[in-house]
């Protein structure tokens, strides 16, 4: 039962990997601006349903030559004084139109200064500007003529790379594998800057949906904290509490299964409700407290795994803390600034991705959890697991309260080793199932257990 699922995730992860690797490779391998020691501009497009947001990163050196606005020594605090001139200049040189030549509306938004570096350029200062490009009502956002000559109208050797960072309808949602759309540079033969024709292909709600499903799946798979919380709550599920300790013996298999199911379900309901509510109401939730709350929830879970704090009420606790986890999930969606229609579909897909992977992981962990509980060294394993979890939780808590530390970094990086994690869970599941089968066939009690060593969960 577990094996086909493992293959399914592998396949899913492979697809996700390719989706990230291909654009990245394209970007690395085919950048015509690379033969350029002078820093170039980068325009990153976020494509929405009815508009496109462009983030411009402009090296201040060439910007000064072209615009006459010298920002090389201007402090960030003094930027607002120049913002009117900057906006006027930018608006004059960003002129998207429909393919038929109908002008789009351009609004220049936030401006800021930062330092950066490109290959072989050395560090330099750049002006970052946001521009919202809106086509005339009913016009296509996915096909347009990008008439853009910021800087290059004057500094003719200047190059602008145009990439797409986020494009929901094309299934590009993570924002960390920008795809290149084209390069805006001088046509030297004619000494003119030809406009770039942007063709983003045909978008579809299905691609957006699938991308969000993958994003959700990856989010929980790589987000060690959510997973750890659930698993640490499940760890003592097959045990009975007595006298403030976990030595009331074993719950029956049916009871254990019911408990695990209830805890998982409660966690699911909790985070789904919170995710849906905060995403749909576009509630502005501060990130830090929520993240700290999650760290605290893991710590509580870890303590509970050592000494029962709330025996029998794990489901309730999972549900309540699940609310916090759901709010954290909603940050991912909030960052994407989706239209309401896209948001609803994204919400469904994203949550579905989360639930599928969560279900898979719980199924994988299930046999190990049941077998572990029967081992003689169960208390030692449980306490060790709980202590490691508690350490990670304390590290995260400190980090999220403003004290960066190596423990948090190590715990975060564990999320990058999903293959190893899945393998451990998978092998554990196979061994545990095998052991149960053997024990059942021999019709013997579950007492001589020194032969089975399970990986701690």
């Amino acid at each position, binding site marked *: 039962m577990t094996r086909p699922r493992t293959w399914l995730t592998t396949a899913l992860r492979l697809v996700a990997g390719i989706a990230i690797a291909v654009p990245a490779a394209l*970007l*690395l*391998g*085919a*950048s*015509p*601006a*690379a*033969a*350029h*020691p*002078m820093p*170039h501009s*980068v325009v990153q497009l976020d494509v929405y349903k009815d508009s496109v947001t462009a983030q411009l*990163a402009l090296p201040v*050196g*060439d910007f000064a*030559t*072209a615009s006459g606005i010298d920002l090389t020594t201007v402090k960030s605090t003094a930027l607002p004084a120049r913002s009117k001139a900057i906006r006027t200049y930018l608006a004059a040189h960003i002129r998207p139109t429909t393919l038929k030549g109908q002008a789009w509306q351009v609004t220049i938004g936030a401006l800021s200064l*930062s*330092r*950066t*570096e*490109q*290959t*072989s*350029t*050395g*560090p330099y200062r750049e002006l970052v500007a946001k521009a919202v490009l809106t086509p005339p009502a009913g016009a296509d956002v996915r096909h347009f003529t990008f008439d853009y000559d910021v800087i290059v109208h*004057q*500094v*003719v*050797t*200047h190059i602008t*790379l145009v*990439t797409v960072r986020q494009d929901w309808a094309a299934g590009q949602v993570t924002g960390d594998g*920008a795809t290149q759309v084209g390069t805006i540079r*001088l046509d*030297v*033969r*004619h*000494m003119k800057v030809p406009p770039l024709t942007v063709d983003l292909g045909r978008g579809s709600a299905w691609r957006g949906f699938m991308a969000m499903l993958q994003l959700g799946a990856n989010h929980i798979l790589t987000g060690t904290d959510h997973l750890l919380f659930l698993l640490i709550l499940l760890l003592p599920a097959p045990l009975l509490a007595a006298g403030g300790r976990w030595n009331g013996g074993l719950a029956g298999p049916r009871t254990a299964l019911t408990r695990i199911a209830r805890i998982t379900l409660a966690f699911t309901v909790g985070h789904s409700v919170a995710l849906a509510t905060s995403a749909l109401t576009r509630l502005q939730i501060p990130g830090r407290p929520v993240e700290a709350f999650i760290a605290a929830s893991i710590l509580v879970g870890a303590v509970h795994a050592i000494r029962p704090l709330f025996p029998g009420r794990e489901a309730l606790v999972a549900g309540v803390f699940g609310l916090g986890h759901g709010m954290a999930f909603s940050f991912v969606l909030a960052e994407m600034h989706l239209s309401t229609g896209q948001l609803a579909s994204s919400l469904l897909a994203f949550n579905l991705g989360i639930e599928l992977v969560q279900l898979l992981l719980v199924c994988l962990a299930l046999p190990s959890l049941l077998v572990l509980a029967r081992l003689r060294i169960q208390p030692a394993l449980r306490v060790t697991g709980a202590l490691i979890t508690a350490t990670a939780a304390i590290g995260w808590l400190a980090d999220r309260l403003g004290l960066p530390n190596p423990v948090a970094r190590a715990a975060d990086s564990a999320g990058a080793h999903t293959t190893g994690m899945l393998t451990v869970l998978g092998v554990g599941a196979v061994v545990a199932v095998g052991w149960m089968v053997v024990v059942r066939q021999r019709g013997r009690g579950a007492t*001589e257990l*020194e*032969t089975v060593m399970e990986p701690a969960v």
Partner: protein
Amino acid sequence: MSRDRTRLVRTRRTWRGIAGAVTAIVLVGGGFAVANASTDTGTGKSAAGVKRPVDKKATGVGAVVSAANEFLNTLDADQQASTLLDLTQANATAWSNLPCGSTCRPGIQLGSLTDTQLAAAMKVLKLATGTGKNTGYDQITQIIKADDVLNAAQSTSSAGPAPSDTASSTASADPSATATDAPTDVPTGTPPSGGTGGGGLGGYGSGVYFLAFLGTPSATGTWQLHFGGHHLALNLTYKNGKVAGASPFFVGVEPTTWTDDDGTTYSPLATMRDGLLALTGSLSTEQLATAKLSESFSDVLLGPGQDGQFPETKEGIKVSTLSPKQKQLVLKAIHPWIANVDDATAKKLMKTYEHELNQTYVAYSGTTALDTQGDYVRIDGPGVWVEFVCQNGVVYRDQIHYHTVYRDHTRDYGSEFTFS
């Protein structure tokens, strides 16, 4: 019964142990295989290379061919394979001014050669290039030295402030890198710590220069001497025992001038700069006004990848309107670039450019002092195309550095290729 069980337990344990060991071996072994796959080449002894004819008495192009063969004879089969490549457009146009190592240019890396091999390689260059001071071979060796200076400067972090937070956005290898299969684990000159991180993909240093012969060197066929690295690209195309093209030729330098440990001062591009200064300095106010371009430049227009992209309309002041003395200054200004090739060929090319002088244009942007970012001079004729630009330093951030390129409207790569 209890003995049975013990035995069973023991057997199971043994099997589990074996399975575990096997898994571990497979994993570790597999990891090793993968890790080694990329580095294996070169560690084993390679087969001896093919021997080619050497004629010590040959002159002109024959001498270059002979020296090329002599160099090839010092190489083993693998090294010969990375030096002798096909004369394709992809290989020929794979050059860059960037410190992008082998990712953007084909050929064998100087840093990988033994002393004997290196001496043989340098002999080829010496015979193929001009004998002038600050031009030809002398200039090329200085450019290579400059990269060691740059590397040392970057290692000691003598340069400007380190970047603060935000990481780089994009940028990468030259697209023409597809022309080579060379390994990318080039020993780089990039320092382990500090530095301002301008090393790019190949790093700085005299070892990070590459020599290739595109086509087989011969006094009868068509082939190209293709040499370069950071701030240097030499493309000499030979056809039937003659030089059919001495361009594209890119030279740049940072720092523009430096003094060695033994007290020698180097300024490898000074002759080029001084020729242009003499020319623009001779122009009257009215002539300067005509020569001034409205555009600004932060690099040369026709750098790597811009083959055949000459502007259709020439800009600036027409040389036919200049005085005879000024015309001589134009020729003198062009000469250091043409002098990259052997003296006889350079003389012939200069004759051609002299013929075309009246249809040639001189233009500039920024100031004529050639000491500020954006200062730019261009000489554009029916054949010749020379650009010189001043840019802010990458490692020496408080200084400018130079980029220049020499092209020929019809003779780039010996007219072997057409560019759309």
